[in-house]
């Protein structure tokens, strides 16, 4: 068999070829939707046509076996049509109401977790971690797994005041955009990298290593034919390690995670917000990071009992005030919570009004 003919610059196929016929027919002409249960919604078009979406959880990291199984289910019940959500859930697109029950039954039999729609916890946006990234200070997939196990009933059944969007980033690059999540985990290094000067000499290009540092903390060390790092400027990002592996940033004894909270991306009710630091450090404790789930549970429980209906975590905290947030959650307030990075002064209290 001859090799297939390669082509360049063709871009992706046209989306129309991947839309179920009922969507093609009613494209841009939907009237309303209803959430029938935590994992099923129906969209109704102005024509009266309907499409049902059945949502299931996915670990995002999928084997070809599992993708084939999903494809087979889509073929059996959905005319072969299936989609993925921004948060990496899987949606089976059912055009024939007759298939709705049998699809859900087979999904349950096969141990899929159905849910995630409405005021619930949906899948956790996350990045590569130890599975596949050089920068990682923790394993994102592992933390996601234990958090979703812990909060499974908020995916499948129980309601929250509003959606709670969780995220995990395995280093400060935050590929998963955790900086605007209701509650998120971001992994951090806490120490200036160590330098193996002999290896630097042989393995690294000094100018590019210096240039890699976003804060300008690296300068040449001509005597050692190596580099030195100004500890006052270093923010432990690991960029230098990226271009010069003998500058070692990984440190199993000092790497762990921080927790941030109160961010959102939607414009509903209040403007999009950044997440803010709530817990500066929790040590890595694989395989199940029990200390992380404990703190997340602590924050979530107070939110569930105190927030008003439709309030997101950040809106709830803004209503009660951050000082009260630390009081009701019992989380300690430390030096790390007071900003000393580039836009710090915007976070200082410039008023005489606050709570005790």
């Amino acid at each position, binding site marked *: 068999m001859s090799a*297939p003919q*390669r*082509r*360049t610059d*063709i871009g*992706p*196929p046209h*989306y129309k070829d*991947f839309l179920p016929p009922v*969507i093609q027919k009613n*494209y*841009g002409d939907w009237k309303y*939707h209803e959430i029938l249960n935590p994992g099923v919604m129906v*969209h109704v078009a102005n024509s009266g046509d309907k499409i049902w979406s059945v949502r299931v959880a*996915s*670990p*995002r990291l*999928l*084997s*070809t*076996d*599992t*993708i084939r199984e999903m*494809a*087979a289910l*889509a073929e059996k019940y959905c005319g*072969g*049509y*299936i989609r*993925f959500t*921004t948060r*990496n859930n*899987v949606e089976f697109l059912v055009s024939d109401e007759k298939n709705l029950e049998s699809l859900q039954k087979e999904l349950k039999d096969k*141990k*899929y*977790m159905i849910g995630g729609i409405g005021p619930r916890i949906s899948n956790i946006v996350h990045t590569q971690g130890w*599975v*596949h*990234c050089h920068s990682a200070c923790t394993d994102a997939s*592992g933390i996601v*797994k234990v958090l979703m*196990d812990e909060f499974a009933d908020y995916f499948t059944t129980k309601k929250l005041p509003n959606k709670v969007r969780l995220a995990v980033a395995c280093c*400060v690059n*935050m590929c*998963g*955009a955790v*900086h*605007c999540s209701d509650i998120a985990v971001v992994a951090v290094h806490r120490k200036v990298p160590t330098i193996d000067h002999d290896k630097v000499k042989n393995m690294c290009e000094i100018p590019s290593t210096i240039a890699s540092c*976003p804060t300008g903390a690296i300068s040449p060390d001509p005597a050692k034919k190596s580099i030195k790092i100004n500890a006052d400027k270093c923010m432990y990002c690991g960029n230098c390690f*990226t271009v010069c592996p003998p500058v070692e940033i*990984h*440190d199993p004894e000092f790497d762990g995670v921080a927790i941030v909270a109160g961010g959102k*991306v939607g414009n509903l*009710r209040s403007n*999009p917000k950044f997440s803010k630091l709530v817990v500066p450090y929790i040590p890595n404790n694989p*395989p*199940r990071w029990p200390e992380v789930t404990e703190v997340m549970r602590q924050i979530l429980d107070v939110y569930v009992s105190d927030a008003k*209906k*439709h309030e997101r975590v950040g809106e709830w905290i803004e209503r009660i005030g951050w000082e009260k947030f630390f009081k009701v959650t019992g989380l300690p307030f430390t030096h790390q919570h007071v900003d000393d*990075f580039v836009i710090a002064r915007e976070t200082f209290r410039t008023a005489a009004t606050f709570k005790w």
Partner: protein
Amino acid sequence: MPKKYDTPLLDELEKGPFPSFVTEIKKAAAKNDMAADELGLLEKSYRDKRGYWKHGGIVGVRGYGGGVIGRYSYLPEEFPNVANFHTVRINSISGFFYTSKFLNEMCDIWDKHGSGLTNLHGSTGDLVLLGTTTENLEPIFAEFSSRGWDLGGSGSAMRTPSCCVGPARCEWSNIDTLDITYNITQEWQDEMHRPAFPYKFKFKTAGCAVDCIASIARADCSIIGTWRGKIEVNQDEVINYAKKGMNIQEEIVNMCPSKCMSYDGKNLKINDEDCVRCMHCISKMTKALKPVGEKGASILVGSKAPFVIGATLSWVIVPFMKMEPPYDEFKSLIRKMWEFWDEHGKNRERIGELIIRKGMREFLEFIGVEPQSQQVKEPRRDPFFFWKEEELKPNSELLKNR
């Protein structure tokens, strides 16, 4: 038979109700050498509490400068099958719609030439094929491109654009998010495949202010659908929501950020002029409330993660723009932005960082957009502003016609 590793720590992550990524890796590891070594290496990471990946040289396919991300193991002797374990990014379909036929084909190619492990999807929105060797890259590219699929973006290039489900399955979309995404992807193939920008550039398109694709937080250019007009109220449906137990005063009226609604126990009134179109009321009462009027999008620029200058959210550049094919007005705006970035941007400086460094005025003048109050939350707080030569008119002239 692939090598079998003992994985007592990872086995702990097969317990519990949520689907397990460890189970996924094991499924692939049962028949694939690369996946088997990935499992062994990951167990070692769990034991030693550290990652074992590093960067390496640039890898890719002929004629492209991106789309493949080189990944090398720290421990090539111990885990030879993941000594190089590169990621291939395949440009996803607008709205992440697929057919079983395509997914099966993708799996066939990937089982033959890769680890059998994927991410559906990566954070940027690519179909991520996780782990293969350098020799396999050309055959993989030939298999995909001969079937009509192309690579996504990486490096200092335009990244794979992505969008919310939009008009395909959402009643609130003001713009055709899928078509915009497809159209700009096709328009700028060269910018995607041959990195020539100072740094990465991401587009994300949301149909409305709910922003289901998180465009405002993670795109250099966020396109967010909006409308100029009113919210049409179906009072019968309002009554139905009340009957079904919705506390309209508490849940809708009191939560409106612009305090532009009133409710007398029967009729819901909206002062449309004061509505900021936040989508709260519409999303809670979809059968009763509907946006009507001229549809278009707000164009925002600049969001990125905290690195270097602190996190930014995208900010408004063009408050309202019609978005109809072939999107010429939008495309010429973007081309002007890229020109500005090309002229002034430093290596690894995102466009938002550049605008902050050079100032909004210079940016707006360069791209030819007038200053508008919608671009800011509030005017400046300091008196330290400058005048350009051509703006300086003497008082006598300013007072001439008084």
